[in-house]
């Protein structure tokens, strides 16, 4: 069924049962119809399935500009943060830092997870797409804050180390509707790759902290 028809049908159903049906419920039905039209416009291709755009609670709330920021969504955002916090797994034996040189490669690469990639493609972190990180790399994005001097300015206390791991593992645990992907939660990087990126940010020898 075409979207327009679908919406029209939902609208007329709403009109018929208007008595007792709140504006919110009508709105929810319209949203459901639109979600259906969106998902129905796609097909699975390569490694990306249509299932992957059916939304979880985080994505539902953060797709609504009224809920994503401001008072109306406050409670739901807090619940989302809690839920995402529970997904974070510390690295085996508490080894948080790997090799910053490898971490730089991970931060540079924006590859992976598109329908033109293979399941064997080594994903990148895409960190430079959004963050300034080391001084030498002048081609960086500004969707996220600058991470230049991250370890030097933040320090490397256990609390900072754990926070940084958590942020990379699941950014939505700290900011429900962050633009940053949930990198560990969705297995975008391996534990080893995340340890290497951690070293890039926190190792005193890393160029980030020079």
């Amino acid at each position: 069924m075409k979207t327009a028809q679908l919406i029209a049908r939902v609208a007329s159903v709403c009109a018929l049962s208007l008595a007792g049906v709140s504006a919110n419920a009508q709105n929810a039905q319209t949203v459901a119809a639109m979600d259906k039209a969106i998902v129905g416009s796609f097909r699975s291709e390569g490694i990306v399935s249509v299932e992957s755009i059916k939304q979880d609670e985080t994505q539902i709330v953060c797709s609504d500009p009224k809920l994503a920021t401001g008072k109306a969504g406050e409670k739901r955002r807090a619940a989302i943060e809690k839920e995402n916090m529970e997904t974070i797994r510390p690295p085996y034996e508490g080894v948080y830092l790997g090799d910053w040189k490898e971490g730089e490669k991970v931060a540079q690469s924006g590859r992976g997870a598109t329908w033109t990639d293979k399941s064997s493609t080594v994903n990148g972190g895409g960190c430079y797409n959004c963050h300034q990180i080391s001084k030498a790399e002048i081609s960086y994005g500004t969707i996220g804050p600058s991470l230049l001097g991250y370890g030097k300015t933040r320090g490397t206390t256990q609390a900072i180390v754990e926070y940084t791991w958590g942020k990379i593992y699941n950014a939505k645990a700290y900011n429900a509707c962050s633009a940053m992907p949930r990198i560990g939660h969705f297995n975008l990087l391996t534990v080893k790759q995340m340890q290497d990126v951690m070293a890039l940010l926190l190792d005193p020898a890393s160029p980030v902290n020079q």
Partner: protein
Amino acid sequence: MNRTISGGRIGVALGLGLSCLAMQVSAQGTPGTPTASDGIAKYREMIADGNPAELYEAEGEELWKKAAGPKNATLEKCDLGLGAGVVKGAAAQLPRYFKDTNRVQDLESRLMTCMEVLQGINPQEIIDAPFGKGAKKPVEAIVAYVVTNSRGMKINAPMKHPKEKEMYALGKHAFYYRGGSMDFSCATCHDDASKRIRLQDLPDLTSQKGAALGWGFWPAYRVSSGEFWTMQRRLNDCYRQQRFPYPNYTSDVTIALSAYLAGNAKGGVVNTPGLKR
């Protein structure tokens, strides 16, 4: 069909020019230093006497006037919204509602309707062909021809009919719809004019000014791929980078996003075909 466009070779030549400019691009944030977009602006001046999209446009005009398909007819009676056969200004007023199909259509879905009704060409063949190949190739050339004929005009998709308003609303919903393995929506990258991916400036497509910058310059000739890209192809590649699955050609979501962009861009200037990285 005889291939008259050697997009690949043009692409290589242009690509070299662009990378030379890219080398001049230095550190960001220092006042007065050129950004990547400055580089492209300069590059546009350099080749001001010719956008390679002109080759597609010329081919498209020929295809518009040439009898083709099982019905051996031309497209000269095709109604793009301003009456049968009117090409001038038509693209500036799309997407719009069409009574005969009872659907809001963008340029590409409307062309498919005309090719089916007038020429007897099966739209599924066009949908199934990859971009730049087979049954999609003639559609792309005709798109270049049609959009050139709105150049300099005001962006003015009507957005009055209830179905046009519904399509705009769906487009807005799609724009903010987060999903996939990276939780991205269009808004993640395009809701703030100060955002950048690497050195690439991202227009704020929720504002009139930003939407006019985005919508007003597409379809465009893409230097990096050496091909003319339609809006459907632009959106398809944005969704690929968004880690979404494959949007079906001319599916509701693609037309709805075009309606949203065109609606936001209303009053801006049509600069198509654009010339892009």
